[in-house]
């Protein structure tokens, strides 16, 4: 980080609100659930000060539908929740995808299934990346692993949502939401991407034909045509928006693959191993959809041995296996919902493979 940047110590949840407000989010709708309650609390405080609107909805379902309304009017809007609440929002997310509305949805994932507990977890990877709601749709999914990334990726999420007219999910977890780390604000000054005009928004039809926002297509062939357009959009996203990070991956003998909190724990493991002369490397998908399959296949093929690490009992590992095929040996280390692996545990399972 540069010397000039202003740094503050901040929780992950608060960093999300800073990123959202820097991106111009004006409408926030949410319903309380631990471990993300700081987000609505900060938004309630901040949005009225900048002419925005905060509403504590009567339920998670109401909150996502309020996002639908605000997005249809062309305003940047967001909702956040944690796993059980995100399940409730799936119908609304499917409708947002169908109506091609930009919105940002944050999941500060906790242990499940059911109410589970409030500890950090990565149990919602399938739900986030494979649809979650009904219908043949995709959402862009971003997996931050630090407080800085929570801020930067929230900012980015609003731009991606507008560019592709699609809901964007941020998949973090309870530990990232609750932990504190310095955040450098210089990135907040960067201009937004070149964004298309929202000519489709419902802004009053004076001097123009009315716009229609809907996800119901009953006419002959209409829906299939719509779905072909959505498919083309998802292809474009796959071609343009893949993001990942590599850490000591080039000369590694064993490649760890992890995202989010697991990735930052693995980074510590890589550092520890390197000090002992053990060549570990890390491949960290930042976009979970689109998944960085080609880049991973390339790296895994060179190294030949891959260990996927997740705070669940094997979800992303399926995408890793699809990407790498038979070009590498695949192993998995997981801790189910409610458990967080220590760097020592991961280090030991690495040693067994070398």
């Amino acid at each position, binding site marked *: 980080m540069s010397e000039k940047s202003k740094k503050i110590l901040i929780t992950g949840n608060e960093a999300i609100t800073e990123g959202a407000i820097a991106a111009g989010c004006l409408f926030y709708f949410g319903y309380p659930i631990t471990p993300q309650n700081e987000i609505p609390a900060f938004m309630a405080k901040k949005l009225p000060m900048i002419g925005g609107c905060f509403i504590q909805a009567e339920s998670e379902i109401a909150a996502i539908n309020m996002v639908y309304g605000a997005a249809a009017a062309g305003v940047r809007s967001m909702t956040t929740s944690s796993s059980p609440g995100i399940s409730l929002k799936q119908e609304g997310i499917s409708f947002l995808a169908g109506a091609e509305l930009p919105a940002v949805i944050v999941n500060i994932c906790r242990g499940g299934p059911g109410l589970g507990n409030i500890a950090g977890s990565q149990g919602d990877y399938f739900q986030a990346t494979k649809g979650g709601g009904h219908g043949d749709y995709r959402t862009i999914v971003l997996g931050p692993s630090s407080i800085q990334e929570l801020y930067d990726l929230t900012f980015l999420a609003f731009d991606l949502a507008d560019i592709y007219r699609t809901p964007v999910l941020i998949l973090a977890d309870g530990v990232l939401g609750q932990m504190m780390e310095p955040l450098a604000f210089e990135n907040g000054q960067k201009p937004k991407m070149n964004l298309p005009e929202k000519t489709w928004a419902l802004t009053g039809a004076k001097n123009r034909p009315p716009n229609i926002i809907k996800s119901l297509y009953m006419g002959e062939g209409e829906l299939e045509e719509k779905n072909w357009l959505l498919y083309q959009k998802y292809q474009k996203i796959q071609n343009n928006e893949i993001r990942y990070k590599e850490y000591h991956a080039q000369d590694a003998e064993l490649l760890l693959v992890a995202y989010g909190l697991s990735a*930052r724990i*693995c*980074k510590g493991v890589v550092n520890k191993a390197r000090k002992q002369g053990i060549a570990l490397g890390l491949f960290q998908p930042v976009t979970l959809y689109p998944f960085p399959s080609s880049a991973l296949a390339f790296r895994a093929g060179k190294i030949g041995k891959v260990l996927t690490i997740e705070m669940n009992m094997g979800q992303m590992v399926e995408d890793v296996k699809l990407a790498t095929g038979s070009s590498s040996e695949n192993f998995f280390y997981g801790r189910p919902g409610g458990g967080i692996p220590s760097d020592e545990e991961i280090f030991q399972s690495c040693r067994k493979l070398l």
Partner: protein
Amino acid sequence: MAEKKICIAGSGGQGVLLLSKILATAGMLDKKNVTLISSYGAEMRGGVINCTVIISDEDIGSPIAKNPDILIAMNNYALQKYGPKIISGGLLIANESLIHDSQFFGNNIKASFLPATEIAKTSSGHTKSTNMIMLGAFLHKTKLLSLQNIQESIKLLLPAKNQNLISLNLEALHEGMGYFKEEIFYD
């Protein structure tokens, strides 16, 4: 500086979180990488609360530490629960005022006991600044962070409008820095 994992534990209301935030903020101002994570959510009033602060020159991996290098124990329960987890060769700073059983570990631990609650009461008339006494003791023992940035952090984290509160806390910090009753080496 090698990575230092500090566990701060006590009961709700003892200022564990503020003490932890001061450590992390001072680390940040000292241009180190820092993380802070506290136990959250399901804690009961009067229950034990613990925070982990990690300070390092390198990037920090997990913010959670199974075995801390340093434990700041604000009461007996914190000592009993987290004392045995300190790494061999680690450091314990414990509030002797609230400890009635220190026979718990055989590791090679450097231990500093000080009657922080009593010191706070004697110097300021109430026990609220116990955490600052402990912070002073920590600073004196470890020299991990600069005094200047610890003071700066106290000023940043306490409400600026209450200058009296800030000076009370700074006084307690210096009180803690200057006081050591006994030092015990276990081997």
